[in-house]
């Protein structure tokens, strides 16, 4: 496909988890959790979209819905023009070769009863990509590609360190030669020293294999160097979306501004006020009326309109979208 074309497009994605019923399945069902509430974005081929937000804002649900590991309630997802949400089981299985996922927890994402070899050979068998001695060759080259000694093929996950496991997880995702990868907080669970190595590996793989990434993270610092565009999520909705340069340089949404103020600045003489967000994230089962961010918003102009009228996600500068009534007057 032509570079710059939209490889992944998501429109109006919605996923509400049903509230569990109280006691013995009787009684009123609790309110549904609005994990994802109308999320839209597109990712150009070969680029990275960073999807950032606090824990529980629905990032993983977005990523898993795109891959149909979760069935979303509404919305459209296309991968290279294919309607992902309309596919039957057989076509979906075929499409899984083109989109893969790397998980956050390097301990939970590998089957403890399977060797590294078995883990990496399984996708090859499912998609009939290799057989016989070819499997061994492919496993070996995958391990080398993610920077592991091929001798690790015989190891079980518990014999590996967190960073090594995460490399195996990446190798598994690459085994089917996908175009698109959802990286669901791939470094959050790793030691700081290992984080940079894995990030570098991901950047290098993207360059070599021309991969397209949806990079999920819970703070803006992690995606700063890898993302071309960034979308900031709050309570199931995107509150700001822009190119990385615009978003880091001139954030328009007060939530983005507060997240950025928490990012350490390399130059200590640079003046930046640190904004500490008040209060906890409200429950996605009962989002506040009006602007969902209003109970915690530090914007000086915040007024009654914020409490009643939900702000639409609108273009506030060329290529920059924000969902705030006062986006034209950033903090």
């Amino acid at each position, binding site marked *: 496909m032509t570079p710059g074309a939209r490889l992944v497009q998501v429109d109006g994605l919605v996923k509400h988890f049903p509230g569990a019923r109280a006691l013995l399945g009787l009684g009123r069902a609790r309110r549904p959790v609005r994990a994802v509430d109308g999320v839209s974005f597109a990712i150009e081929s070969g680029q990275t979209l960073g999807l950032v937000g606090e824990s529980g804002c629905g990032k993983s649900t977005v990523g898993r819905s795109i891959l149909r590991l979760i069935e979303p309630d509404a919305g459209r997802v296309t991968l290279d023009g294919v309607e992902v949400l309309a596919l039957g089981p057989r076509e979906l299985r075929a499409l899984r070769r083109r989109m893969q996922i790397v*998980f956050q927890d390097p301990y939970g994402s*590998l089957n403890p009863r399977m060797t590294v070899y078995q883990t990496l050979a399984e996708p090859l068998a*499912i998609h009939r990509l290799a057989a016989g001695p070819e499997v061994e060759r492919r496993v070996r080259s995958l391990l080398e590609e993610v920077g592991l000694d091929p001798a690790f093929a015989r190891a079980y996950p518990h014999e590996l360190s967190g960073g090594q496991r995460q490399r195996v997880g990446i190798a598994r995702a690459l085994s089917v030669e996908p175009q698109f990868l959802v990286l669901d907080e791939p470094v959050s669970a790793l030691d700081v020293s290992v984080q940079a190595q894995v990030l570098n590996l991901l950047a290098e793989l993207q360059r070599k294999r021309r991969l397209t990434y949806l990079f999920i993270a819970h703070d803006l610092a992690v995606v700063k160097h890898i993302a071309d565009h960034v979308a900031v999520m709050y309570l199931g909705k995107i509150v700001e979306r822009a190119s990385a340069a615009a978003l880091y340089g001139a954030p328009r949404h007060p939530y983005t501004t507060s997240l950025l103020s928490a990012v350490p600045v390399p130059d200590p003489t640079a003046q930046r006020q640190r904004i500490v967000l008040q209060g906890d994230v409200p429950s996605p089962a009962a989002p506040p009326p009006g602007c969902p961010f209003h109970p915690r918003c530090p914007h000086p102009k915040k007024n009654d309109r914020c409490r009643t009228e939900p702000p639409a996600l609108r273009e506030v500068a060329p290529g920059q979208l924000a969902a705030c009534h006062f986006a034209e007057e950033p903090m």
Partner: protein
Amino acid sequence: MSALTWLALAGAVAVALLVAEEAHRRAAASAAGRRFLRHPTATPGVFILAFFVTLATAAPLLAPYDPAFQIDIVHLQNHAPSAQNILGTDVYSRDVWSRLVYGARISLGIGTIAMLVAVTAGAGVGAVAGYVRRWVGAVLMRGVDVGLAMPRMFVLLMAVALWEHLPLAVLVLLIGLTGWFATSRLVRAEVLSLREREFVAAARAAGAGPTRVIFRHVLPNAAAPIIVSAALGIGNVMLLEAGLSYLGLGVPSPLPSWGSMIYDGEPFMAGAPWTSLFPGCAIALVVMALNAVGDGLRDALDPRKETA
């Protein structure tokens, strides 16, 4: 008993000791194995089980008489243990030791086969009910609720009462098919938590269908509760078979099972206690050994105790 029989018995003890020794050596080499060995009764349990399994497999070598052979119906009724018949004879003048040895085949065999039936059914139903969360799972689990509420002994007695000369195979199948409900609950609970694990999501993302996910990813990780309930299940089935046989409804005479031996000897408990006592001890020993080994396995296989 001839010198050859004594030799065979010594051989059986030696084999059991070797098995227990080897099991101990292997267990000590791994963290899970050491959790097994922390149970002081686990290794003796292995020894007892190995001993009785050896008896069962090598029964023709170890039994001086045919288990149904009536040695001397006039002079050797309910004869006390002697050099000739180390565990005595029963009212039909049959050698109790020989019957005990052949009875191990039947009692352990029934226990093992019925347990295999029960565990297969329980693991299958539990896996499906846990993995397929729609109405299929709900219906299966309501069925299991009914099964658990059902008095098992009563159902078996009914079957025996309604079907005269119930073939042993059918009885074993019935015992198995009435014994999987608790296992299926255990397995379902395990599957419910396993299906949320990320490696299951990863397998689905790789294109694995439900069958592959259940058999390659979910069940192997649910092996611990399955193995433990299998070990404990054999003991239960043996007790159940003994109960049925004791009521005269289980293994038909003259086939020796430990339960039917107790039944045969029961009227003479006062004068010839050895006829019931020895098979009773055998049942008690094997059931206790199975419980000890099952408890040890529970700890050894508990993934929460796994050190990363």
